[in-house]
């Protein structure tokens, strides 16, 4: 019977779901089939780790919703975070301990340019020094230009609701690429445009806390346009080929994609899952493919806009993958949709479905765009650290399988190097390969079990983790 179904599915052109769960992953082999030069690393973002920032998010952390609930669930503030701005050397040792050959970090715009006409050269120098030290350690830096936070002066002028922000961001990207281009070749313009738009403008749980379908679509469109402008600026400013591969700049963005699984065989469930997928997963890649931003909010917005420079602005696609949502049409819900994880599914500390098959499916899917892919984020909230080794191994297994089937995937960045400030969830969820003691002023880093897994894969790739 199963064969009959497989045949029927093949006739319909459906790509059937692989079964990876429960499969024993041979750690001694994991990674050996990946291409030479594959980047194996970890990722962080400035606001989540640097500490002592002053931006639109720090304002948000200090205020509350109208019903009195704090904007950050556990009532915390980013504050000192992991103090990584002052402890970069320490973090570099962690990367060496992992055997990583790549590190994705972001630049804090508000630190470099706290006011419109103030550029802090000493900050630029520090970021440049990080890139130099990484490269000296054999670690390729991938620099994210915008990872959710804005300087207060930009936010005060409308943030991503304003076209003026595009101008400011383009100038910032240009200047940054000019300063860091000698050491940085891998650029990630914008992190997760869809997530920022949905959290900040649809759900209203991130700054600026709005709830508007129209604004959600407009902001998402503007963030994609910001990518196009930044890509052009970076390519113009970064003329130095730091890694001598013939390309001074590889520019892309980090796209957050999820699996949207229809809950049942109901036509309504399938329709709602399809529409959700199209908006959340497809808008960015369609923009990359066509050079057009196409978004529709029935009755409010019908956007089909060609953006100059968007076509061809992607040298690679960054994929941030974490989980799968089951989607049930629910006419009693204003969004007509309810997303959930069924009982019995393995979950992470935030209740997200652990579904490594999803990474395989998305890699196969996005490979059709003809762009190299970097997995720019993948990780698990796991406070005890027991789930992370398996999570890491299973997702790398999924990646390796996709690669073996011809997907041009060139890197994997685990989220995250360290426990950090997890936005609206505060410090409760722990995503780090290294646990951080947030109670102590030293912010002591401690290995979790997954470090051994990571090191083994690094060795299989021919890398040399520090003892």
């Amino acid at each position, binding site marked *: 019977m199963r064969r009959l179904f497989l045949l029927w599915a093949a006739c319909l052109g459906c790509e059937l*779901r692989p079964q990876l769960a429960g499969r024993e992953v041979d750690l001694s082999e994991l990674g050996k089939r990946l291409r030479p030069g594959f980047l194996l690393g970890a990722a962080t973002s400035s606001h989540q780790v640097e500490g002592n920032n002053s931006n639109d998010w720090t304002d948000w952390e200090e205020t509350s919703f109208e019903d009195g609930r704090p904007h950050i669930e556990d009532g915390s503030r980013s504050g000192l975070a992991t103090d990584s701005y002052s402890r970069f050397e320490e973090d570099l040792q962690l990367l060496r301990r992992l055997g990583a050959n790549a590190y994705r970090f972001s630049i804090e715009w508000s630190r470099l340019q706290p006011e419109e006409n103030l550029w802090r050269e000493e900050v630029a120098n520090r970021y440049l020094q990080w890139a130099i030290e990484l490269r000296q350690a054999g670690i390729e830096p991938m620099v994210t230009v915008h990872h959710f936070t804005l300087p207060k002066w930009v936010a005060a002028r409308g943030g991503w609701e304003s076209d003026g922000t595009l101008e400011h961001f383009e100038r910032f990207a240009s200047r940054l690429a000019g300063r860091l281009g000698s050491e940085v070749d891998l650029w990630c313009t914008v992190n997760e445009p869809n997530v920022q738009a949905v959290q900040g403008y649809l759900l209203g749980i991130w700054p600026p806390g709005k709830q508007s379908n129209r604004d959600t679509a407009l902001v998402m469109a503007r963030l994609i346009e910001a990518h196009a402008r930044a890509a052009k600026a970076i390519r113009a400013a970064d003329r130095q080929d730091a890694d001598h591969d013939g390309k001074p700049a590889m520019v892309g963005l980090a796209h957050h994609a999820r699996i949207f699984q229809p809950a049942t065989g109901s036509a309504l469930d399938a329709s709602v899952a399809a529409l959700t997928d199209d908006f959340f997963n497809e808008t960015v890649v369609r923009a990359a493919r066509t050079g057009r931003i196409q978004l529709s909010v029935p009755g409010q917005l019908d956007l089909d806009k060609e953006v100059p420079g968007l076509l061809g602005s992607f040298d690679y696609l960054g994929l941030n993958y974490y989980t799968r949502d089951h989607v049930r049409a629910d006419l009693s819900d204003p969004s007509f949709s309810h997303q959930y994880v069924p009982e019995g599914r393995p979950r992470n500390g935030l209740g997200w479905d652990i579904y490594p098959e999803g990474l395989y499916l998305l890699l196969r899917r996005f490979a059709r765009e003809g762009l190299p892919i970097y997995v720019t984020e993948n990780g698990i909230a796991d406070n005890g650290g027991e789930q992370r080794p398996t999570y890491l191994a299973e997702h790398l297994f999924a990646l390796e399988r996709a690669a073996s089937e011809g997907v041009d995937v060139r890197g994997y960045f685990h989220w995250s190097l360290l426990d950090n400030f997890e936005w609206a969830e505060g410090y409760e969820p722990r995503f780090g390969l290294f646990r951080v003691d947030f109670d102590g002023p030293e912010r002591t880093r401690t290995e979790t079990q997954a470090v051994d897994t990571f090191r083994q894969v690094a060795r299989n790739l021919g890398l040399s983790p520090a003892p």
Partner: protein
Amino acid sequence: MGALLCLLLATSPATPELLLSHEGAMGLGLSGVGYTHGGGRWGDLSLERVVSARLVFERFLRGLTADASLGQSLPPLGGGVAPSTSLSLRAGYTGERFSLVGGAVGQYSLSAQPRLQLLPTFRAQLRLGELSFVAGVFDYRGQAPAHLTFEVGDFGLGYVAPMGALVTGRIRLAEHVGLEATALAFRLANAEVAMLTISAVAGPRSGRAGGNR
């Protein structure tokens, strides 16, 4: 007097035949739901089991019509859509040339949240000579959002909104028994739904040409 009238109605050879009559059906099928993306598609397949019945009162409360359809959707491959059960209950009126029923269709899945999905459902049918027009909203246990079908004799061809088609066909096996196949497929934006069921049907006119829709 009343009893006499009933007797006359019951025995009168001149009583015209209603458009529909009693019928029961039991069938099996396959369904697929999924969506397209960037040139590819993801989908889930299920085995369908369907039991349905229609009652048309021909004497007492002549024309009163009730139909019920119970479907089970069983995915054979794990990890995707969950098993579910659908029940459609409708009531209405059937005349000599038309029929109209309305009600609700509920779909229940133990592991879904929410477990119950409830929709209105309608089906209207009009016969003009040899041709029948059927319009339905959330017909076929909710799987066809809206359709308009033209039927001639034992065959029907329909449009499923917003972009799809529906085909039905029936072959007679015996005086009161037939075999009916129904296939529908449609796209809604990037969603795709397809279903094929083959049912044995039985009723007073189920084996008649053009007989009992």
